[in-house]
């Protein structure tokens, strides 16, 4: 009999306390950032898709077309082509394609590159209408960034 009433008392008290918690939360500021009207700064360490590093002195890429990134990618999404131009001893990069629909952002290509020629971009709001829009031409992106 005593348990009947004590259960009612503790139960009722717990219900009122719970209501107090939500009532207090009613007046606290909202946590949501209403994107796209407000934006958050993205950390520079964020892993977007890879980009070629632009060397500020030489104003070109650092890639030597060794193909290590292409070989070590577990998802086979990088395609590289280097051509030996006239009068040059080493190969220059002609084609660098990234199939972003397969990339898993593991970072193996960035680490394995002997010249540190790859870095992560900070693109986080990519959207497109077709799958082909995500077959990035990284060399062209570098050309656009060149001054």
């Amino acid at each position, binding site marked *: 009999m005593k348990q009947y009433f004590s259960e009612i008392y503790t139960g009722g008290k717990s219900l009122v306390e*719970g209501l107090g918690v*939500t009532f207090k*939360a009613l*007046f*606290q500021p*909202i*946590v*949501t950032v*209403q994107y796209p009207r407000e934006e958050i700064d993205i950390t520079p360490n964020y892993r977007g898709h890879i980009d070629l590093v632009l060397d500020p002195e030489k104003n070109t890429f650092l890639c030597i077309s060794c193909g290590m990134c292409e070989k070590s990618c577990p998802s086979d999404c990088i395609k590289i082509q280097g051509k030996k131009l006239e009068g040059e001893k080493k190969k220059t990069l002609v084609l660098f394609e990234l199939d972003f629909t397969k990339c898993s952002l593991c970072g193996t290509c960035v680490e394995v590159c002997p010249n540190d020629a790859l870095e992560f971009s900070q693109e986080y709001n990519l959207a497109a209408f077709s799958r082909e829009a995500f077959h990035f031409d990284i060399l062209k992106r570098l050309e656009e960034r060149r001054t």
Partner: protein
Amino acid sequence: METISILPPELIRMLIAAIIIISFLFLNAIMMGYLERKIAGHVQRRPGPMEVGFHGILQMVVDGVKLLGKELLIPFNVDRTLFRVAPLLSFTPVILPLLVIPFSEKLQARDLSLGLIFIVSMGSVNVMALLVAGWGSNNKYSMFGAMRAVAQSIAFEIPILLSMLAVVLMCNTFSLKEIVGAQQKIWFVFLQPVAFLIYLIAGVAETNRAPFDLPEAESELTAGFHTEYSGMGFSLFFIGEYTNMFIVASVATVLFLGGWHGPNLPYGEYLGIVWFFLKVYFLLFLLIMIRWTYPRVRFDQLLNFAWKYLVPFSLVNILITAVLVKL
């Protein structure tokens, strides 16, 4: 010149009142829907509807237009008449109790001398609508929801009646206008706090709101008895539920919180409606907060709660009231 009236003036008055009340119902559903979503948002630390209109005021209007435009799907192999009738059956009986509620001293559609019993009887028809919806959907999940709804509604009608009886014992009348009139000196909530609490809890259970929303338990039964309804059918259930909540809150206000009594206003006989709505919306705010705070009770625990806790307390309450009134 003598005016010839085709209809008796009393009937015209009632017709106008009925039209005003029905249009008020839709407005109330819109307001309550918006209020619920905003309060739910802020309790969860998010903004709620914000896009349409200033802070999302027009959201419910846009939702209504969307629901009107949807195709009324009728699933394969259902009982067509029952399937179509269920939303109408859920929406119509909840309009009638609003005709007897005194919004203010002179604003009442019709004052029946058995007003209270009329309201309770209309509430029982709601059960049938749920059962028809669940059976007519040809869906096991809906049938689950319907069966639970029947047991729940029948079990919780008794505490409602018993707590109302406590107030009736004090006033000697079933007419709502006289009950409000008898609360001029002191509201009944101070004389009968237990009955007020029991009435509110049982009212929440009657309208199938959380934490007693087993018929439409979203995470177990994927929307229960109204799984198969789309478009306007769904929104009729929706509006019916909000109107039911409004009726529960307004009957609680009339019986316990003193109806339209409040500090004096000019044109007090008509503007008493302002105090009435303030009290009703305070109770609705409480109901909305309860929904977004507590988890759901299990089905047999619900019936346990009704029979083992609410009924004994309300019986003892009536006994004490009867003894004290006689003295």
